[in-house]
């Protein structure tokens, strides 16, 4: 299949269709609306379900219902809309049904703005809804990755009966890049042994619910979720490495912050600085082992994010204070320029780092000086 120029949001929409999306429920919000708009035309064309719900709450509960019926289902939204869906996510996880949710993140908190942001990392990776659960969270940095990870998200969600989120900042959603679409998969509904898809009098009744009034039974669910999560952590970690072979220190960044860091790493390399880049593709499960492998042979890490250092905490958890971890972030919908990260690389390359410095405090001090 030849490369075509795709806008990130529309690419996600078409990729979901080709992956066999059976039902879509959503509500418009910038910078994600093109997904909904595209599917409003495409899904009916193919005889599949498209509903623009009355709100994000409506949409996520429609997703919940369709997921219980065992069909491939997705919703998409942007930060404030995703916040509204959190109750539904918890119910979906508590019921152990698969669903895909795309969050094209924008500046926040609150209504914020519509500019690109990565500030919903914690919400996606470390919680959001109530109760003990983990989402699989994929973080594409390009339009091609947005396509590939959208397709993968359905397979992962179904394999582990979990929510798979795809989080991208608004710039990946709005950007156009050449990309290849996968072939259209034949639509066939899986014959799940858990789905409440109508027994037609032929099999025992199935009940799907997130209610376990007996705490012992709830704890069994918690253990089941945790056991599945352990398998996910073992088998589903994905990341991309750049210039790591001889790297003396390493940048960790996901999504757009990761690809801006790539430009900075190349420029630093041209100046003779041996820096590499680790770009997590699954931010949940987080590539702890990949960082563990690097700790023994690099002198430090620089985490770059479009937030106040949310993934930073996971990197610090992996590094365990053995080598210095530095941080550089932009917030509020600001995308860092290559020069800013290059400046950080040059600072690190020419200074003596300490494990005793709090990376966020040090970053805030540098920010204050810059202003």
């Amino acid at each position, binding site marked *: 299949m030849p490369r075509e120029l795709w806008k990130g949001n529309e690419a996600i929409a078409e990729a979901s269709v080709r992956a066999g999306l059976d039902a879509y429920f959503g509500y418009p919000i910038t910078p994600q609306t093109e997904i909904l708009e595209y599917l409003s035309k495409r899904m009916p064309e193919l005889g599949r379900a498209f509903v623009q719900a009355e709100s994000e709450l409506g949409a996520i509960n429609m997703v919940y219902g369709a997921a219980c019926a065992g069909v491939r289902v997705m919703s998409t939204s942007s930060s404030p809309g995703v916040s509204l869906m959190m109750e539904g996510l918890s119910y979906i996880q508590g019921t152990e049904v698969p669903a895909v949710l795309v969050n094209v993140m924008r500046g926040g908190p609150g209504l914020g703005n519509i500019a690109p942001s990565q500030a919903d990392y914690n919400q996606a990776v470390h919680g959001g809804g109530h109760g003990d659960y983990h989402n699989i969270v994929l973080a594409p940095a390009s339009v091609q990755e947005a396509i590939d990870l959208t397709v993968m998200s359905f397979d992962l969600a179904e394999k582990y009966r979990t929510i798979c989120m795809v989080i991208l900042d608004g710039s990946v959603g709005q950007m*156009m*890049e050449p990309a290849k679409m996968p072939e259209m998969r034949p639509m066939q509904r899986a014959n799940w042994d858990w789905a409440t898809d109508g027994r037609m009098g032929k099999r025992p009744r199935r009940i799907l619910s997130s209610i376990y009034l007996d705490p012992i039974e709830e704890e069994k669910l918690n253990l089941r979720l945790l056991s599945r999560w352990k398998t996910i952590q073992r088998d589903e970690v994905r990341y991309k490495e750049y210039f790591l072979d001889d790297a003396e220190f390493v940048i960790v960044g996901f999504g*757009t912050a990761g690809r801006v860091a*790539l430009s900075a790493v*190349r420029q630093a390399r041209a100046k003779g600085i041996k820096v590499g880049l680790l770009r997590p593709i699954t931010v949940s499960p987080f590539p702890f082992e990949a960082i563990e492998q690097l700790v023994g042979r690099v002198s430090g890490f620089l985490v770059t994010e479009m937030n106040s250092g949310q993934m930073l905490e996971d990197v610090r958890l992996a590094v365990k204070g053995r080598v210095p971890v530095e941080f550089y972030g932009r917030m509020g919908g600001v995308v860092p320029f290559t020069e800013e990260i290059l400046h950080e690389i040059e600072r690190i390359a020419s200074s003596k780092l300490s494990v005793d410095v709090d990376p966020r405090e040090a970053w805030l001090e540098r920010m204050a000086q810059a202003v």
Partner: protein
Amino acid sequence: MQKEIIIAGFGGQGVLFGGQVLAYAAMDAGKEVTWIPSYGPEMRGGTANCTVVIADDEIGSPLVKNPPLAIALNLPSFDKYEEVLAPGGTLIVNQSMVDRGAKRDDIHVIFVPCNEIAEEIGDKKLLNMVAVGALLTVLNDITLKDVEKALEGHLPARHKHLLPKNFEALKRGFEAAQKMPA
């Protein structure tokens, strides 16, 4: 090879499409390319811009602080991008919409009366193609032919009748820029 281009102007001047045409041409030439618009509320009636990055390898940042190449289709864009253009870079300015000359002498500023040329061709909406044609004089990796083929290959069928005038606009812009003293 990597080249970054910013195209800026009023909403309605064809800024975003001008960038897309370059992106299609770069893709068809087998290159990596990113096209990213300013998608804020400012695009409705105010200023709009898009950034196009063309490279041989995987592209990192889709945005650029100091572009080596830019097109300014109106005065606010001329003011803004003359200031941030990388030293030695080239700025194509729509002369029809500005009332001043260049301030910097460490960049190349090419003035092209895009509106007048477009009107001579018979469609004032073609001013963006005139400017893109002018840019091609300094964008060595993409030829006039590449852009023509991109338009032919990617313009929706209902717009195909517009191709000859688009080609003319590109060519006239290219020629106007070539005539400018270096």
